[in-house]
């Protein structure tokens, strides 16, 4: 499923990389420990987190993740948005909690297994 379809389905607000929303999402990973995301996420994953520090962009870029969804309406820091624009990483904001958002993503066919 493409990012753009998920954005529409889940009413996500896009905060960066508007032109990079046709990326294919091949799975999902939810974690707020960036060291854990570095160790365990996989290329093409959509990452669900509440961390808003600019390091999230570097992690997503290093792991070639499909995008980042921030939960509970948390807004990325300004440096994070700027870095995400440079690195072409899509950051989206959802008003939902992580639990609810992951549940809905799963319902739409985004899973944690390959």
């Amino acid at each position, binding site marked *: 499923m493409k990012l753009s379809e998920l954005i529409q389905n889940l009413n996500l607000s896009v905060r960066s990389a508007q032109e990079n929303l046709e990326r294919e999402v091949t799975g999902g990973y939810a974690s*707020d*420990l*960036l*060291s*854990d*995301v*570095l160790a365990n996420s996989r290329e093409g994953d959509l990452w669900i987190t509440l*961390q808003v*520090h*600019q*390091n999230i962009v*570097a*992690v997503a870029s290093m792991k070639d993740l499909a995008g980042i969804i921030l939960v509970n309406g948390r807004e990325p*820091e300004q440096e994070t948005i700027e870095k995400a624009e440079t690195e072409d990483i899509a950051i989206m904001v959802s008003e939902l909690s992580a639990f609810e958002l992951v549940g809905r993503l799963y319902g739409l066919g985004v899973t944690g297994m390959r």
Partner: protein
Amino acid sequence: MMRKVRADLHLHTCLSPCADDQMQATAIVKQAKRIGLDMIGICDHNSAENVAAVAKAGLREGLSVIGGMEITSREEAHILGLFESEHDLMQMQEVVYENLPGENSEEAFGPQTVIDEWDRVVGANQRLLIGATTLTVEQVVEAIHERSGLAIASHVDRERFSLIGQLGFIPKGLSLDALEVSRPSAMQQEYDYPVVTSSDAHFLEDIGINCTTFTLEALSVSEIRKALRHEMGRSVALN
């Protein structure tokens, strides 16, 4: 004249809800002296209200006590701030308090006891010291430096509440003065910052299980800063 100084710069007191209630001023100083430390740092979670008590007890017994705090950033990374003057430390505490939401629950997290230099209870801190501030790591480090303090990332080799655990790696351009490791003998990587080790003791018997040896001319924060930078013959060594 240069001398070698054995220092454990990261100890908690009974003010930290997670620390043992035996972590009181005279007991801490006595234990530190017994095991041969020359200098200790008092770094409770998000508060410095027991620093004066331990410092006075240290003065009485001839032990150097550095005042500090272990500050929790909004990313839940722990950063130590060590300060030369009590004035700067109290100002830093103000900044932390202004940005620290919540109220402690003794039942859930433990008591936060404020003591004097004779270990007498003088009060209880009501703030949620175990919680996180709303300050970013960058803001924490900047606030420490604005008050001439040393900013040291706590226990970076642990996953929980460490800068590297929470944020994956040290954010580019973060001007830390040093990194603290908890397992110096098992250091798995080279860091781009000076490294110190300390006990992070929450119990008396853990004081000094890790310590750092500084070569200094005097027991002060500015001398530690020079040692971390290896300036003018000062140096730093683990254990």
